[in-house]
C-alpha cells in the first residue's frame, strides 16, 4: 500500500525558505504570487492493512515535528 505523507509548516510559523523562493519567483518576473510555503513529501510503501492509527503514530513520533508542522496522510491507489 502506497502512502504519501504531506508535511507542512503550521500557519504562522515563519518559513525562511518559502520567503526566499517567493523573492526568487518575483525576481524571475512571475507576478501575482501571494505566498510560498515549502513542505516535505514522504512516500511510504507499507503492508496492506496497516491501520490509520499506526500511520498517524509514525507521523507524530518521527515524520512530522508537531510543534511546528502539520501532516496529512494520503492513501495512493
Amino acid at each position, binding site marked *: 500500500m502506497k502512502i504519501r505523507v504531506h508535511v507542512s509548516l503550521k500557519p504562522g510559523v*515563519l518559513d525562511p525558505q518559502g520567503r526566499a523562493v517567493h523573492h526568487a519567483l518575483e525576481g524571475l518576473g512571475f507576478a501575482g504570487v501571494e505566498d510560498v510555503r515549502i513542505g516535505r513529501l514522504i512516500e511510504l510503501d507499507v503492508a496492506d492493512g496497516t491501520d490509520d492509527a499506526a500511520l498517524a503514530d509514525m507521523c507524530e513520533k518521527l515524520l512530522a*515535528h508537531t*510543534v511546528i508542522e502539520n501532516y496529512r496522510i494520503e492513501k495512493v491507489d
Partner: protein
Amino acid sequence: MAFRAAVITFPGSNCDRDMAVAIERVSGTAPIRVWHGDARLPEDLDFIALPGGFSYGDYLRSGAMAANSPIMQSVKRRAERGVPVLGVCNGFQVLTEAGLLPGALMRNASQNFICRTVALKVENDRSLFTSGYKAGQIIDIPVAHHDGNYFADDETLDMLEGEGRVAFRYVENCNGSQRDIAGVLNAEGNVLGMMPHPERAVEQAHGGTDGLALFENAIKTLVSA
C-alpha cells in the same frame, strides 16, 4: 570520587571531542565516550552531554533521527531521574526532538549558516548550569549553526519566561529566534539546551573563556553534592 560524565557521539557529531576536552579540563577526569547505538548508558553518571554537529546528516529535521536512536531512550530515563543533561547546538536540537525540552529549532531566518562569536545575556543565574554567572551578565560565546531559530508558540514562550526557564538570550538576535532565546531549561532545571557553544570558549586560545563558568559551576556543584 571521580566525576563521571558521558559524551554521546552520533554519526555526524563533530563537537564531541571539544565537549569531552572541556569537561576533562574542569573535572580532571575524561568523560566516558558513548556511541549512539549503545543499548544503554554507563551506570552512576553525574553528567550527560549531547554535542554539536550534524547527526545523521540532519536528515528529515536536525536532531530528529538522533532523538530516536537507541541511546536516547536511556538518556530520557536518566534525565527524568534528575541526571543533568547539557545539549549544545545539535544537542539542543536533539533535546527538543526528543521532547526533553519544549519548542523546535528551525532554519535561521536569514537562511545563512552563522559562524561567529555572539554576545549572550544571562537570564537565569539560579540553575546548575548558569549560577556561575550573574543575571544580566553579558558573555561572548561562539555560534555555528544553520538551524538555530528557536520557535515555540506564545503560550509556551510565556510559560518559559514566567518560570525563569530562559537561560540565555542573544543580545542581538542572529537567527530569528522567538524572543531572542538562545538556551532553555526544563521545568526541573536539570536539562539545558543552547545553540551557542560554551565548550568552544574555555581556554585563551579559543579567543575567550566565557564558557568556562558553565562547566566549572555545574561540575563543582555536582562533585560537592
